[in-house]
């Protein structure tokens, strides 16, 4: 018998260069592993930065200003002669906590609004829907700027404004999720079994509606960090010399031509955090959905 070598021989081009499912899974895992490793690095940086950084983040040494990366200073030094690597490591705590806190706040608001809209009947839903739409008309940064104008620039305002800015998006998803779960056959099945409204809400609707929020949160952290750092960049965030990444970026901006490392590394940190959380979030998302798919 003649065995045709592979599908390429028999199949059309469109299907002859397929992405085999098995290898797709293998490919998927590299990202999450790297992400987890990077996040572990960050956890260490938050728990005990001195393990990673050998300089104090605030130790000024004007004699050594703007030294290029070397063995002694992995990421070089900044304009005050501070070790950029150490600052990046110490900067993990403020930068991440702003991102996390803002995401948490955004989600909290979203859950309340979304749950009210999803569960509160037609009128409440319509009202909250309008409120969300109005909030959507305020781009995140605009909201943050307004907020900062009224309440002043501080880390707290930063967190609150970024959280508020991200809330409508989350809320819309929470609402959609609750509505979907509410009308799902398994919720109806619960009612048919004679369970009370509150029991069904508490045991079935809410837990299931909240399930995708983990993924959402993971995806959101990176964006929150980016937004918070944008505000820091505009000068509305953390105060120097605190090693917050966004503020460091604002600092390093003018050295982009003369000392690129001051600008590049904090920025790369933000990118990596976002990459890591996003790829982890998407991995989780696929896992969640994938379980449904292999049914």
């Amino acid at each position, binding site marked *: 018998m003649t065995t045709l070598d592979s599908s390429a021989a028999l199949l059309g081009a469109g299907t002859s260069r397929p992405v085999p499912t098995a290898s797709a899974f293998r490919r998927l895992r590299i990202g999450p592993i790297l992400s987890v490793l990077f996040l572990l690095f960050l956890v260490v940086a938050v728990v005990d930065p001195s393990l990673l950084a050998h300089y104090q983040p605030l130790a000024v040494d004007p004699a050594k200003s703007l030294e290029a990366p070397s063995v002694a200073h992995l990421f070089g030094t900044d304009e005050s002669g501070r070790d950029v690597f150490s600052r990046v490591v110490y900067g993990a705590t403020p930068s991440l906590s702003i991102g996390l806190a803002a995401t948490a706040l955004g989600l909290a608001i979203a859950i309340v609004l979304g749950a009210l809209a999803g569960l509160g009947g037609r009128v409440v839903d319509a009202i909250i829907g309008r409120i969300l739409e109005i909030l959507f008309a305020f781009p995140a940064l605009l909201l943050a700027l307004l907020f900062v104008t009224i309440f002043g620039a501080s880390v707290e305002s930063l967190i609150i404004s970024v959280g508020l800015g991200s809330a409508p998006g989350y809320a819309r998803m929470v609402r959609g999720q609750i509505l979907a779960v509410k009308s799902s056959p398994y919720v109806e099945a619960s009612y048919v079994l004679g369970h009370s409204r509150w029991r069904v809400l508490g045991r079935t609707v809410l837990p299931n509606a909240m399930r995708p929020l983990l993924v959402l949160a993971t995806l959101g952290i990176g964006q929150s960090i980016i937004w918070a750092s944008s505000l820091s960049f*505009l000068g509305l965030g953390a105060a120097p010399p605190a090693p917050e990444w966004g503020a460091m970026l604002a600092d390093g901006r003018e050295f982009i031509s003369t000392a690129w490392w001051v600008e590049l590394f904090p920025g790369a940190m933000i990118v990596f955090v976002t990459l890591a959380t996003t790829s982890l979030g998407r991995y989780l998302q696929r896992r969640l959905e994938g379980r449904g798919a292999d049914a």
Partner: protein
Amino acid sequence: MTTVSTGSVSFEDDLDSDFTTTGARTSHSQRGWRRLVRTVGSGILVLWGAATVTFIAINAMPGNPAVAMAGGAASHPSKAVIAAVTREYGFDQSLFVQYLLYLLRLIRGNFGFSSSQKMPVADVIAESIWPTVLLTASALLLAWILAIASCLLTVRRGRFATSLGSGLEVLSAALPQYWLGILLLEIFAFSLGWIPATGGDGAVGLILPAFTLAIPLAGFMSQVTRDEFDLALEQPFVISARARGMSDWGVRLRHVLRHAVLPGLTLSGWALGSLISGAVIVETLYSRNGLGGVLLVGVTQQDMPLTVGVTLIVALVYVVANVVVDALYVVVDPRLRSR
């Protein structure tokens, strides 16, 4: 395209030949009207809401709102000026009356005078709105082009291309705009000198800012588009098309793409909001004139009339954009026409 002599619209030929879906035409146009009325209604509602929120913001501002409206403490408004503002805005009246007066002025298109720009707010906006609309619109367009190109070229194109495509998308979405902007500026303007460092005029000046805004957005768009693209490629109707003898490119362009852009299209309304946020950063970064920069000035200089004006214009742009997106959605997904 040839039209068949029967007089009806031919269903022959290319993507762009639009098949009017049929059904009772009158009821369609009635539905169209109803939808239009609903969209406009909800648009007005959003504007009203935005105006209300800004009204609350003015009143939440520390200090005398009359001073804020007269340019803030920093501009040392005279007593007479404060009195005039107080009278005009009714700051001596009840909050409700103030609110009504405020709405009335807005309806009349009277946005007040910008203390920081020494110009009527309407003039400031008129001068800065087009650069921003141009910037955000071209960024949106560019983001779409990048996202679609990425999907067409890399979805299910072998392991390497696929990972490259999806990797680049996630990376793009993770880039902070200001950082990307600085890098682009350094590379293309400072080092290579391809583009004037000050941005240059006209289309050239638009290149870097538009890319700065578009790349992260393209990352987002193409992630959702990719998922949908991937799904659609496996759909029975796609296999049917292949079974009719259609080529891979044909399938991608004629069938899959249309489905794949739908979720991204839904995102476009939101995306515009984020682009306006981004415009604040990009306009500062590239020293471009525009609403973003004006807004930043308004906010940092506590120029309340300006801030309110820009806020409402942004809300209006958002509303209009959503109407456009809705309309586009129907063009791409004619199923909605009959709903």
